């Protein structure tokens, strides 16, 4: 019924976190077997590859880890786990040197030969390292090459279906996969497992992440009863491309810099509306602009496809073509004229701040399971700074690799993960049955269900939320889930069956959506990315709390609130001494 | 599946280069053999050369010259591409190479008849 396979270190996901963990684990102990399993092709899926802006790191010359940390805490509205945020900012310095010096990344330079660091929203210093506006491609290609060149076992187009506990029940024994190409189930036993499937809020009608991401990791953890934090915190990017329901282009990001450079946002009638909402107009922060656009859309002042326009032509089409070459070409390839015309845009779900509860060493509650990257919660609190996403996945991916290798060899830390453990066979069978379910159901339309989920989440659990809406949403999620479980596939061929994987994706997405809606309902204030129209106040900073959700008996979700531990800095305080807090504006 | 881009001028150029090279390589032994005849008997070479007075044979010779010059100029373009700094005007150069070749071989034909 399924194949069995053994390894020492198993890594799920090949984004910044997964690839870095692989390299570090392999380097730390070359005599252990490292296996990386990924839903797509190694290096060619996931969101790290899609990073445009760049990588935040404090490299001196007036900047400091303290400043980066303070920006992260203030950007996250005092919700970040401070130990994690600190480790992120501190380790980013080493990591970026590692990327340049050891991995071979080719970051842009200043005329004097030092790294070029650009400005990015929400930061008091120009600290974003980049390679043009295709930074992610550079990072992932270089990491991919390093992994390809090493004796690492690669399981490509292997989809993780479930985390399998040991038969004693208190450790992880391994992971159940389906080898997508052959349509065969495969149970891989491992001494330690890193989950790095990269979150990714693709549950919204408009979203930016890559198509392979469907929050599988979070759903797998949820089914094991592991705690997820900050799940109400979904970041929306204000300007996603809007090309209608029938194109996969819809939702993809149009660069932030367009607004920064002086682009206009116009409603369906061609009127500039941002100054109705904020005195900075189009240059206001992501959350404000997203909400303003959403508001205009609700008022019906929309473009043919139901969004607003971004217009650049008043800056001179040729200038726009030159300054935003990549964006203009991308739009042109798809039939839009960004330089001289207007392009329809809409806020688009971009990043999930929420994730598993982990410690700064990436360990989880369950022995043998580690989590890094967008799957892990904590580092960003209620809002992630642009440029902190890829820093987070590479920093903690590397940390995970080191820690796991240590735990497996027993060189440091835990000694008892040196042996493979026997799995809970009943759980494997149950998960296989879950995955096979659609083959025993009447043929239905998975795609139509997915659309309904995305519309519903956008309307009820989206940019602006209310208690009533969230409750409506939760009810609909129940219905959608019940319908999905009755929706079958036309054909019982499991070989590279994309529609089957769409079904499995949707199952993960619905399960995690329930958590997002529940956490959003429990937070009765508006913080960072979470906005409640019925509770617009942000709540007291001193008594900040974060939400923790987990599945208890059956499908029941329990959401609790835990106080933020201000272990490094308290609201009202700062780590910055003798320097102005806003270096950038001080410099003009 | 069959590639559609075989109408690309540069692909045609490479095909011409290959065909002309092959034709020359096949013709050359013959050419050497005929010249080698002079070793034993200049008269036999002459009998052969007289044969070349026929116009049709002249035309064939002109075709050979065409092949040789196509291969020559095409080869020079490739050598330039490989050993000189990049130039984006390869299609133009290929066209020039072809034009030169026709020029040379027509020149040959005209002076031969």
């Amino acid at each position, binding site marked *: 019924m399924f194949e069995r396979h053994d390894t020492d270190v198993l890594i799920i996901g090949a984004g910044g976190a997964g690839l870095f963990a692989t390299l570090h684990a392999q380097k730390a102990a070359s005599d252990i077997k490292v296996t990386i399993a990924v839903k*797509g*092709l190694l*290096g*060619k*899926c996931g969101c790290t590859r*899609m990073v445009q802006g760049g990588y935040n790191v404090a490299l001196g010359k007036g900047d400091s880890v303290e400043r980066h940390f303070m920006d992260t805490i203030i950007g996250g509205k005092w919700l970040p786990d401070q130990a994690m945020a600190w480790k992120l900012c501190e380790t980013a310095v080493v990591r970026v*040197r*590692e990327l*340049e*010096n*050891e*991995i*071979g990344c*080719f970051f*842009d*330079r200043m*005329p004097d*030969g*030092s*790294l070029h660091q650009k400005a990015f929203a929400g930061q008091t210093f120009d600290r974003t390292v980049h390679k043009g506006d*295709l930074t992610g*491609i*550079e990072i992932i*290609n*270089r990491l991919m*090459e*390093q992994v390809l*060149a090493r004796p690492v076992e690669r399981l490509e187009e292997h989809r993780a279906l479930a985390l399998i506990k040991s038969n004693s029940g208190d450790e992880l024994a391994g992971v159940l996969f389906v080898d997508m190409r052959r349509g065969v189930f495969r149970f891989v036993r491992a001494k330690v497992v890193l989950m790095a499937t990269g979150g990714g809020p693709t549950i919204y009608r408009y979203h930016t992440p*890559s*198509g392979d991401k469907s929050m599988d990791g979070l759903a797998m953890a949820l089914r094991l009863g592991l705690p997820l934090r900050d799940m109400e915190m979904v970041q929306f990017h204000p300007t996603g491309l809007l*090309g*209608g329901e*029938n*194109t*996969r*282009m819809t939702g*993809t990001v149009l660069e932030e810099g367009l607004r920064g450079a002086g682009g206009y946002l116009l409603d369906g009638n061609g009127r500039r509306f941002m100054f109705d909402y904020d005195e900075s107009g189009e240059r206001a922060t992501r959350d404000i602009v997203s909400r303003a656009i959403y508001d205009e859309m609700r008022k019906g002042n929309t473009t*043919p*496809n139901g969004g607003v326009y971004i217009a650049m032509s008043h800056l001179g089409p040729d200038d726009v073509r030159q300054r935003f070459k990549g964006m203009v070409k*991308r739009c042109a*390839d*798809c*039939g839009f004229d960004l330089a001289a015309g207007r392009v329809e845009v809409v806020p688009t779900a971009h990043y999930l701040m929420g994730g598993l509860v982990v410690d700064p060493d990436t360990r989880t509650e369950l022995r043998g399971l580690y989590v890094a990257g967008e799957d892990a919660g904590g580092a960003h609190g209620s809002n992630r700074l642009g440029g902190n996403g890829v820093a987070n996945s590479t920093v903690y991916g590397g940390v995970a690799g080191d820690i796991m290798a240590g735990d497996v060899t027993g060189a440091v830390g835990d000694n008892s993960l040196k042996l493979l453990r026997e799995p809970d066979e009943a759980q494997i069978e149950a998960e296989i049955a879950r995955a096979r379910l659609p083959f025993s159901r009447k043929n239905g339309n998975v*795609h139509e269900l997915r659309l309904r989920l995305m519309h519903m989440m956008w309307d009820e659990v989206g940019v602006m939320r209310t208690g009533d809406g969230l409750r409506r949403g939760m009810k609909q999620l129940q219905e959608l889930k019940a319908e999905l479980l009755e929706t079958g596939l*036309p054909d019982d*061929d499991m070989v*590279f069956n*994309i*529609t089957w994987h769409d079904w499995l994706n949707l199952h993960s997405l619905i399960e995690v959506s329930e958590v997002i809606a529940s956490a959003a309902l429990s937070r009765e204030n508006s913080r960072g990315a979470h906005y409640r129209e019925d509770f617009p106040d942000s709540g007291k900073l001193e008594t900040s709390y974060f939400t923790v959700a987990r599945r208890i008996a059956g499908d029941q979700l329990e959401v609790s609130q835990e106080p933020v531990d201000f272990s490094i800095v308290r609201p009202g305080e700062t780590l910055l001494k003798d320097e102005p807090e806003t270096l950038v504006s001080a410099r003009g | *599946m*069959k*590639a*559609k881009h075989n109408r690309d001028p*540069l692909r045609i150029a*490479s095909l011409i280069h290959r065909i002309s090279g092959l034709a020359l390589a096949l013709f050359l032994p013959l050419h050497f053999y005929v010249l080698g005849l002079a070793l034993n008997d200049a008269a036999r070479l002459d009998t052969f050369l007289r044969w070349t007075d026929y116009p049709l044979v002249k035309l064939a010779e002109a075709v050979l010259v065409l092949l040789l010059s196509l291969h020559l100029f095409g080869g020079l373009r*490739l050598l330039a*591409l*490989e*050993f000189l700094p*990049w130039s984006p005007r390869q299609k133009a150069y290929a066209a020039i190479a072809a034009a030169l070749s026709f020029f040379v071989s027509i020149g040959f034909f005209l002076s031969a008849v």
Partner: protein
Amino acid sequence: MREAAEALDVKVWRGNAHGGGYRSYSVPAQESQTVLDVVTWIQQHAEPTLTYRFACRVGMCGSCAMMVNGEPRWTCRTHVRRVLDGKRLEIAPLRNLPVIKDLATDMAEFFDKWTGAEGVFHPTATRKDAIAPISPADPMRQLANEAVECINCAVCYSACDTVTANPSYLGPAALNRAWTLQNDERDGAYAPRLRAVSADGGCFNCHSHQSCLTYCPNDLNPTASIAGLKRLSSTSFLRRGRTR
């Protein structure tokens, strides 16, 4: 209102490593519609078991390349209007790579050759060292920079007739990557890489067809990169292995 009344006449190759053939579908035309959207429509509405690959959908991951009306393309960034032949669209898996199923090919050999061309950075410094100051105006840096933004989509690989004719040929993408590394002053494997790219399947097999350059969706120029490698290897040999 977006629904143009027209329908596209789409043929899609279906099959696996053992063979297959084209099947026809009628797909509603849309105002905004890429080739990937056409394939997606067919999977979502007409042929649920149709297999294809994509991830980023914006030209960054290089996993969606297919043959479109006989030419290799990144499908997520190819508007249907630009490739339509009348109303006809013919979609097939990438040339020069083995098919797994329908439109998905096995890219293993493409990446094996990438590694085979020493397409991997060999460090000369560690994370403890400062980052090397390199002027963006440095000529070598500029050469590397011009060629570095490759998304390994294998469009060039499937456009190249030499790859078709010579299965051991490393191909344009791998060699292009090797070229960027030969111009990267931080790299420490200049000599071994030069050996790798000048071995039997290496850069000398390229006949400068330029199809790679014609089709690269990112406007890279593997032809020039390969010519550069030919020069580097030749001069280094003529100088009896003394490099640079």
